């Protein structure tokens, strides 16, 4: 499982960075999305990987913490998803405004002279 997850994070991050460096605004925003997916998975993985273990502990008595997943990264990743989603939406609006104002979708607002 570790290898699958780390490969997923790696591929997502690599594609994200590559797209981020492309000249079209649409490529940049897709790159940012992929990068944020990679980051979210990474935060999740920092709580250690466990399968079929609940993050919420029952009430009362002594319990064995190793039988439960770490709830904190799950809370963090939720916050990160919400914030990232909002920021991406805002970026999308700016991107469309830039397309409308400049008439093309280059990140610098004009095509480089060939």
């Amino acid at each position, binding site marked *: 499982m570790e290898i699958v997850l780390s490969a997923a994070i790696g591929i997502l991050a690599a594609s994200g960075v590559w797209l981020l460096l492309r000249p079209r605004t649409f490529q940049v925003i897709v790159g*940012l999305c992929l*990068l944020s997916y990679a*980051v979210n998975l990474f935060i999740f993985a*920092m709580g250690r990987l466990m399968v079929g273990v609940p993050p919420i502990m029952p009430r009362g008595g002594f319990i064995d913490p190793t039988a439960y997943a770490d709830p904190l990264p799950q809370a*963090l990743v939720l916050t990160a998803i919400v914030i990232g989603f909002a*920021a991406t939406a805002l*970026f999308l609006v700016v991107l469309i405004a830039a397309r409308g104002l*400049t008439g093309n979708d280059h*990140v610098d607002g004009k095509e480089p002279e060939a």
Partner: protein
Amino acid sequence: MIPAPEHLIIAPILIPFFAGALMLIYDDRQRRAKLAISLVSALATLVCALELLSRAKAQGPGGAELGLYRLGDWLAPWGIVLVNDRLSALMLVLTGLLALPALVYAAAGWHRQGPHFHSLFQFLLMGLNGAFLTGDLFNLFVFFELLLAASYGLLLHGGGQLRVRAGLHYIAVNLTGSALFLIGVSLVYGASGTLNMAQLAGLVPDLPEGRRALFHAGAALMGLAFLIKAGIWPLSFWLPTAYMAGAAPVAAMFAIMTKVGLYVILRLSFLLFGAGAGASAGFGAPVLIAGGMATILFGVIGILAAQGLGRIAAHLVLVSSGTILTAAGFVLAGADSAILAAALFYLLNSTLATSALFLLIEPMSREEGGIAGLLALTADAYGLDEREEEAAPGAGLAIPGTLSVLGLSFGACALALAGLPPLAGFLGKLGLLQGLLAGARAPDALHWVFAALLLGAGLATLIGLVRVGVQSFWAVDAPPPRVLALEIAPVMALIGLLVLLSLKAAPALGYMQQTARALVPPPPVVAPATATEVAP
């Protein structure tokens, strides 16, 4: 007098939050009401910040009794804490001092140029204050995102192709920075199991070797995110265009945005990698020194090469960032904490002066028709409904002797930024040089390089600003522009603060020294036996 004094720490976050939310209910035509709410909120925040400052001053010199506030009264490692110490209180007061003039300036017409200016402004204040107060890494991320989201909106305020293009770059860079920040935070959590700054500081010396490397990687990634915001070279190419493109009051407020990055670097570096951090002590100091110096150099070249005042002002922001980063690097590497005190004093002075300069740019380069023409144009572009209860834009008290007032204000800013007497900039630079060259330890080559860069930056600032000053005040034939009293009063207020800082330099420097001493605790006393074992 205050019903529950222990809750005051959270007031600088809650006041702008409620003010901003309240203003969202109103229609954008109720500008006078919005302005009043905004001003009252900024004033109340400033009063709270001043009270917190006087409380922080009463704390013990070693930071023995910190102002702590536990949100929801959860205990420290589980709950989130707000911490008010000398550095936080200083930054809060600085934010308040910048916010009021910027708002008054915006009242002259800028706030009419687009929707929701005042709400965004209040949310920016909330994010800034929260970032300065929080004692938890993830909470810091949340407040950072808050202030960034507000700053995206503010940067785009007024619209236009230049702003949208600069905003596009600014948002892309900062979203990438936030991704780095998140990776860093989660690595730190994975390596140490906590996100509470104070608890982290206690854990760092005893981290096992395998995890220390992970922890360093996480801290380095987080540091990268803050350095992007602080504008370190080579991560600063977005900054000049973004600062230039912002509307005047927005750019004046942005003068503190790089300082948020600097604040976090100062706070976390000395907390996590100070002298007591065992094997991690001094981590990152070489990067700060080298990067800071490169930033100063880049800023100097930018100032000399710039054609317009906007670009010069933006590069001045870079010079100021670079100076403080380098000073922090030296202190982290073991230099005297007096350098840090001088750097903080310099920070206060340069932030106020840059902010005043950003407010001066637009009136100085104003064409025929003044702000009224400009606003009429944007009102057309937006199809804004002009049925407002107030008078036409641009109406109001114009000041006499426009050119001399503008010229004197500009001169004062130039003196403060170049570090010439009699203003406080001189004292800050003098303190830095004194700490560098006359400290307890003999200065090495790097100290001399930094000293030379400091003096060179002062000279370049003077050359750049004088050139612009000559062009706009002496070599003009056109009739002087019409400048409103509402626009010049905030500039005067900021310059008044600079003069006050120069007059009250002794208490201010004393405060900074205490702050620096609290940030940089003296090296722990090591028993002689172990010391000889460790020594090579």
